[in-house]
């Protein structure tokens, strides 16, 4: 299965009616979709293109390299108007040139701004897709004026062949775009076992909102729960370290952030220099529940610690220590910080002055973060 995802990066995406902004909501959803597709079948490929800005632009042609796909999601420009028909046509062309011609073709369109084309034009485009055996999923969010839902429904109906194409309307609200999509055929369709991932992802995403730490993960998938918990601890420790460093140094740019979060071993040296990541920048690149955790972590480090952080750290230290002595050290530091106040701050700075220690935290964190991204 080869998929091209068409991103709406028009001016309308600045709107915050979808948390945290329409563009970021799209990015979160797309990250999840890419992970789901590449995980359900290693031969699946996904590509990305943007439909607005200066014109339709292909960010990456269909590839199974998840890291490459996610890296492209960073630094997207917002502006201009989305060109739906051109976007779909370019997507079709990109699919046509896929390496494995035996793969089924699918286009996923995020349509969050008004559509200038009339229903007939869209139906003609739809028929072209059907002729060439390309399936289409449309996420209808944002504006609903000018008969946008009817136009998109007609488009999907023209492509639809034996229920292979779907339209998912998503009204604005407190539910994240990705949460709404997880239970739709966009994730569960294709019959490639996407539903298994959807269940785990739903549990993980719900973890940020529900009373459980990670939804019902311990019941469904204990290894996943353990991995998430360890990774959260590492993340929390790292964020505290990063927050301290950010207070001392000037913020580095977005590029540094991008490399730290999604690069592999090859770029470790650059990760060294970007240890002073501004937490604000970092927030943009995390999923919503990771952002919530980050807020929590920062709140904890600012306040000088509450009993809660000590408990969690204590509970997880044995497992973490077994895996990574430096991580254990970092956890120790954060626990101590919960107990003392200014004394711990100077300890932290001393610790951070050791660049090799910082880089090893980031090393271990990046590998676990990369793991998280793949889920």
């Amino acid at each position: 299965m080869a998929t091209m995802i068409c991103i709406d990066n028009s001016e309308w995406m600045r709107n915050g009616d979808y948390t945290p902004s329409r563009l970021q909501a799209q990015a979160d959803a797309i990250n999840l979709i890419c992970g789901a597709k590449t995980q359900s079948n290693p031969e699946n490929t996904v590509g990305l293109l943007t439909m607005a800005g200066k014109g339709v632009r292909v960010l990456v042609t269909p590839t199974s390299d998840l890291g490459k796909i996610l890296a492209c999601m960073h630094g997207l420009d917002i502006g201009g108007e989305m060109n739906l028909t051109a976007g779909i046509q370019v997507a079709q062309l990109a699919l046509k040139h896929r390496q494995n011609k035996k793969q089924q073709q699918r286009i996923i369109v995020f349509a969050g701004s008004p559509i200038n084309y009339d229903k007939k034009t869209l139906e003609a485009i739809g028929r072209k897709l059907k002729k060439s055996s390309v399936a289409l999923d449309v996420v209808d969010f944002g504006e609903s004026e000018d008969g946008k839902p009817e136009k998109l429904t007609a488009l999907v109906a023209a492509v639809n062949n034996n229920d292979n194409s779907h339209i998912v309307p998503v009204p604005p609200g407190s539910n994240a775009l990705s949460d709404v999509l997880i239970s739709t055929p966009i994730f569960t369709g294709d019959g490639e076992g996407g539903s298994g991932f959807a269940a785990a992802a739903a549990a993980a995403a719900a973890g940020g909102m529900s009373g459980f730490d990670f939804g019902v993960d311990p019941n469904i998938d204990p290894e996943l729960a353990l991995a998430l918990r360890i990774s959260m601890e590492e993340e929390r420790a790292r964020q505290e370290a990063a927050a301290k460093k950010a207070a001392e140094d000037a913020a580095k740019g977005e590029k540094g952030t991008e490399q730290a979060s999604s690069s592999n071993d090859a770029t470790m040296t650059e990760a060294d220099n970007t240890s002073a990541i501004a937490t604000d920048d970092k927030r943009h690149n995390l999923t919503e529940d990771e952002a919530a955790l980050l807020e929590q972590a920062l709140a904890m480090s600012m306040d000088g610690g509450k009993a809660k952080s000590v408990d969690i750290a204590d509970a997880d230290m044995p497992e973490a220590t077994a895996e990574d002595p430096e991580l254990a050290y970092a956890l120790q530091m954060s626990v101590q910080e919960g107990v003392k106040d200014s004394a711990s701050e100077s300890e932290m700075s001393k610790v951070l002055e050791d660049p090799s220690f910082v880089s090893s935290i980031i090393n271990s964190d990046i590998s676990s973060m990369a793991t998280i991204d793949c889920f």
Partner: protein
Amino acid sequence: MSSSVIPRGQVDLVDFVDWSGVECLNQIGKNPIANALKQGYRDDDGLHLESDADEQLLIYIPFTQVVKLHSAVITGPEEEGPRTVKLFANKEHMGFSNVNDPPSDSFNISADNLKGKPVTLKYVKFQNVRSLTIFIEDNQGGGDVTKLQKISLYGTTVDTTNMKDLKKIEDH
């Protein structure tokens, strides 16, 4: 089905079709290419190949060995049967975007052809055929739906052509 006049020395290539690779773009799910190509199905008047989104069809037929094509029989109903046909030898992964490339052969199906009269192909163009792509551009009536009853291809295989073994095609 009335008997077709097959030239001496040719065989029905249906036995050499690589079924795992046969594809047809724009066919409607319930009336697929097998209805027109497979033995038994193609002679069943109740089964036919039908187009979906519009009147065009793109049929890809790979062979299990290299063949020479001599002639073809393409039948269908009077109104919805195919009219303009283009053949492409050994072109893989064609799509509707490159059907305007120069074909190996092209012809119009006449009313007689629709009833079973074979179309003789440009033999010299089909001496070394690994796969055949058939593009049905439009139909007799000009409507949105094209229907095909039967596609039969006649020729010989390249390496195992043994004139003594060739039998005259019996009446179907």
